[in-house]
């Protein structure tokens, strides 16, 4: 495997924890600044300047948190599973660490999506929880995250834990479309067409532009949090190596 280098060079550099630590150290402040600017700007735009929805009034403004967190919860799972696959195939330590670092962020995003969905549901549906297809799928996604995290913390050996979690994350990834489909199908079977939270015919630009800003801001935030956790993980796993010793002595 080592002889055949058929992936771009950065891919192999990424495999080096030290290189990864250094590059994330350089990227971190930029992403942090971008996340702060985008999230604050997006939130101000969303709360102050975006027009109120003609049906839902101002409770519509919750969309600017609900949708980005839901999108991020799903992308984070995807990233986690892909990192797991890379870790399994190329035995790449950094990928194992990415998997471990992405799980808690994704789970907290799922919690945020669920909570904002529930809070939004109260003025829209009149109850805190409705077994709506999207909310239910998000709840199951949250359970999948909990499973990966529980497995990862239950196994003591770090590389075994990472490999086992990777298998579970991949099984979950195969299952997500099936779960989504089955839940949507179950939903139409049991409920008359209700007022959907997020499905809007042709949202005007002054409504979706702040949403776009928030989504990009959430991605930047995710990158920041992921890099922070990844760097912690690198230091912990590489604590016996020379370069980490040097790093510790320097500080």
């Amino acid at each position, binding site marked *: 495997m080592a002889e055949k280098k058929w992936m771009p060079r950065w891919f192999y550099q990424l495999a080096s924890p030290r290189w990864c630590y250094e590059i994330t150290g350089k990227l971190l402040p930029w992403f942090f600044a971008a996340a702060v600017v985008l999230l604050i700007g997006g939130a101000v735009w969303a709360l102050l300047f975006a027009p109120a929805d003609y049906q839902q009034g101002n409770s519509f403004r919750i969309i600017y948190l609900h949708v980005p967190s839901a999108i991020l919860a799903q992308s984070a799972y995807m990233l986690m599973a892909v990192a797991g696959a890379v870790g399994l195939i190329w035995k790449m330590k950094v990928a194992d660490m990415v998997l471990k670092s992405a799980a808690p962020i994704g789970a907290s995003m799922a919690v945020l999506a669920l909570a904002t969905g529930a809070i939004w549901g109260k003025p829209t549906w009149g109850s805190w929880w409705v077994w709506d297809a999207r909310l239910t799928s998000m709840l199951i996604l949250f359970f999948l995250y909990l499973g990966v995290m529980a497995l990862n913390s239950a196994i003591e*050996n770090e590389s075994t834990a990472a490999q086992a979690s990777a*298998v579970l994350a991949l099984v979950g990834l195969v299952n997500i479309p099936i779960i989504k489909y*089955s839940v949507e199908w179950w939903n139409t079977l049991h409920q008359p067409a209700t007022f959907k939270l997020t499905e809007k015919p042709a949202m005007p630009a002054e409504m979706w532009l702040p949403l776009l800003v928030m989504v990009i801001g959430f991605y930047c935030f995710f990158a920041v949090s992921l890099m922070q956790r990844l760097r912690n993980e690198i230091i912990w796993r590489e604590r016996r190596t020379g370069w980490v010793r040097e790093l510790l002595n320097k500080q």
Partner: protein
Amino acid sequence: MATCRREFLLSFRRKSDLVNPLIFFLMVATLFPLGVSPEPGFLAQIAPGVVWVAALLATLLSMDALFRSDYEDGSLEQLLLSPQPLFIVVLAKVVAHWMMTGLALTIMAPLLGLMLFLPSEGMPGLMLSLLLGTPTLSLVGAIGAALTVGLKKGGVLISLLVLPLYIPVLIFGSSAVQAAVTGLPLGGYLALLGALLALALGLAPLAISAALRISISS
């Protein structure tokens, strides 16, 4: 084939492994009239879901034992080293396990149907959906069992890992029974359950083998 036969013989010798999930299945179904309401009309309404949930939990309960004893006496390690392809060996083990639990649950399900006043039109739907759905439950559950076999306290963890993955089977299975009760055609539901089973048959043994190798290597 040899593995399959060996598994059967072993399972028969451990009678409690065969009987316990069945007793559990029966007990869970008993809890609902006691906990909710013994009124026949109401029970008939929830019966499809209750029987399916009970079958799902009973399968889950039996999963922990699937690789446990083989792991403890070291024969699992030999199995991994044996020249037979692991895919086949694993599949044989799961099939043997299913015959001991899923098939037994399917045969016992009409009794629970009777206890919960499931209309007799629903019985074929119940049996067929369980027959097609429980192998999927065994296959997916085996992934969880393989991932946790090296851990001392794997039992609760398996449930956490596997229950979310069981949801599609539960939805299609109990819907099939409901459709049968109301006299709607069953074909679509059974086709979906069959599709899930085909997918699980193709992919789950790969995941189980990978998970076993990971668990054993540590």
